[in-house]
């Protein structure tokens, strides 16, 4: 499986270590450690799931179902260090399954959108008051949607499983790495050195 290093943000090694530690303690019999794991990882799963394009309500269900899956099949996580990836991958696969069943596909290719995508104005943009964040939001909004989604995933997930990312974004697995590179370069260019 292709991987890349953790970006050092909310999915920094501290969070990754906290999740691994909590999972290990839970499996060793410390019941309250599961609560810790849920509190640590649920926000990460939220962003992973929302990046698939599901609405907020469906995303919340997917996050809950992911945890049910873990509790029912914790034995299948053979390596405690793999817990963050296991959770994120399970969440993404469940999100993908749900989005397939409600059929909200977007047939327009990014290359087409690329040239036409307007600067998005949405209620979300009103939330951005900080100048630097406003610039980033504008720059990000000018990227193809697929780029936005991929960057959200890799920003929030320490070591994503590229095959499930490929399914979610409906891209060949081999193109995830190069696309990530291209999207980051585009974002950097859009920002023009202002970050």
């Amino acid at each position, binding site marked *: 499986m292709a991987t890349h290093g953790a970006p050092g943000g909310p999915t920094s090694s501290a969070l990754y270590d906290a999740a691994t530690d909590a999972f290990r303690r839970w499996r060793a019999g410390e019941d309250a450690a599961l609560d810790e794991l849920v509190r640590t990882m649920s926000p990460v799963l939220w962003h992973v799931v929302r990046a698939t394009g599901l609405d907020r309500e469906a995303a919340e269900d997917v996050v*809950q179902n992911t945890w049910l899956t873990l509790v029912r099949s914790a034995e299948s996580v053979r390596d405690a260090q793999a817990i963050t990836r296991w959770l994120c991958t399970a969440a993404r696969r469940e999100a993908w399954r749900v989005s397939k069943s409600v059929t909200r596909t977007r047939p327009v290719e990014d290359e087409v959108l690329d040239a036409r995508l307007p600067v998005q104005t949405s209620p979300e943009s009103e939330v951005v008051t900080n100048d630097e964040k406003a610039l980033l939001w504008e720059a990000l909004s000018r990227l193809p949607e697929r780029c936005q989604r991929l960057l959200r995933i890799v920003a929030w997930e320490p070591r994503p499983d590229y095959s499930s990312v490929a399914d979610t974004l409906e891209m060949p697995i081999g193109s995830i790495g190069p696309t990530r590179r291209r999207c980051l370069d585009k974002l950097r260019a859009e920002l023009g*050195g202002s970050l």
Partner: protein
Amino acid sequence: MTATDDDLLVAVAGLYADLDPAPADLAEGVLARLAVEDLETEWELLTLVERVDTRAGTRGAAKPETSNTVALEFAGTTYRVLVRIHHTDDGARRLDGWVIPALPMRVFLGPPGDTLGHTRQSAYADRDGRFEFPAPMSGEARLWLLPQNRHGDRIVPPFVTPPFLV
């Protein structure tokens, strides 16, 4: 200076955390759902075998206080649960109990008809089988006791008390 990939990703993560934050109660919702999931298994209904009411007063104090303790004992095929509900005149309540034989358990306190699990309070029974709700709900309630089975342990089915008054 040009931002590194990591700088950009940290900023992107922060932006989405601001723009589309996870619901504040996301983790609580997950925990409630997990509790309900647990509770959908087969439950053994315990039977009330004894109830003792004790009223105690402190005499000699400038402001005499009285307290009332109700002790309940429930029994099933293998386990007994002893519950004490302690009331004081100032309206404070406390509920504690023991599971015999001692076994680590997750203990839920909630209204009898509460199938959704959202209004349940939870506590852990320690290795001695003791558990406590320092500020329990009031009214009719029951306790759900879920043994924390671990790999290699004998599987102990969960059990539930009949409704009682807190």
